[in-house]
């Protein structure tokens, strides 16, 4: 773990400090008059959604590097980012319905934003399934799927402006009350840090697995030589 680099440990320290500071900023943020206390889910729900989008874009970037340049590193980054997409997708799709139940009176609405978000999440689950069970072509198949998922991201983001929906529009963050800004941006930076740390250690795990596979091949070759 020593070879992770000074940047990793600084980010880890900042994230640890964030875990102490951000909750107090959220508590101090003013209560939204229409929705009340439940609006405080917003401070983590939106950053999680942004991390879902970011992970999907990074996954697509890695997939492009793998498909067109045969980059093994790109493939490792794509896999790590796909897992983070699913992780943050779970966070978005559980915190959202909890907020919706109080604000709209229902757990789920089949409107454009919620449905397209669910589709994006399922695409990333599909990526992982194709990779795991797709056989020899699984990596290429999943990489192609990642490109479609990335195309879906702008559609998810703009869906609230294009179609009539119960979900708040994209203007919510720019028009946020100035007193709510510190809580939102600190939560956003904390989530970005956590995302970067998770991506780093997940890529590292995949690199270690590749190294292990090479060592196993070497060991098998040595055994074959001994036998002959």
């Amino acid at each position: 773990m020593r070879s992770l680099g000074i940047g990793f440990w600084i980010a880890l320290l900042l994230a640890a400090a964030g875990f102490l500071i951000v909750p107090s900023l959220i508590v101090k943020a003013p209560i939204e008059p229409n929705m009340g206390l439940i609006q405080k889910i917003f401070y983590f729900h939106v950053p999680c959604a942004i991390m879902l989008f970011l992970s999907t874009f990074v996954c697509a970037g890695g997939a492009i590097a793998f498909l067109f340049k045969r980059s093994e590193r790109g493939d490792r980054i794509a896999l790590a980012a796909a897992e983070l997409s699913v992780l943050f997708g779970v966070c978005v799709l559980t915190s959202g319905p909890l907020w919706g139940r109080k604000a709209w009176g229902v757990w789920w609405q089949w409107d454009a934003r919620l449905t397209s978000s669910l589709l994006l999440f399922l695409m990333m689950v599909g990526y992982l399934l194709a990779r795991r069970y797709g056989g020899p072509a699984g990596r290429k198949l999943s990489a192609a799927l990642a490109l479609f998922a990335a195309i879906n991201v702008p559609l998810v983001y703009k869906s609230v402006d294009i179609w009539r929906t119960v979900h708040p529009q994209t203007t919510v963050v720019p028009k946020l009350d100035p007193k709510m800004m510190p809580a939102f941006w600190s939560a956003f930076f904390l989530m970005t840090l956590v995302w970067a740390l998770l991506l780093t250690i997940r890529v590292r795990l995949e690199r270690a697995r590749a190294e292990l596979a090479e060592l196993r091949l070497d060991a098998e070759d040595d055994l074959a030589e001994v036998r002959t």
Partner: protein
Amino acid sequence: MTTIATIAMIGRWMRRAVLAMAVLAVSAAPALAQQFEKVDRIQREEIPAARFVAIAYGIIWLAILTYVLFVAGGLRRVNDEIADLKRRLRSKE
């Protein structure tokens, strides 16, 4: 002849449908009316916002923590295997 018979059959079915709807409307009206009851104090559905906020944050951090443990466990296992294989390869040399 066949057309006339068909029209007559459709007419019969339409008469029966209208009759059935009328019977249903007459019989259902008192039943529905009986279900309304006067309530003096309206009990509003209270959804506990604080609990929902806590559950949302709990799920998010639990998911992230579970993932960290999963990756850290995998990393430790793979590093152990790498060290073991390297040791075995070195001992053969």
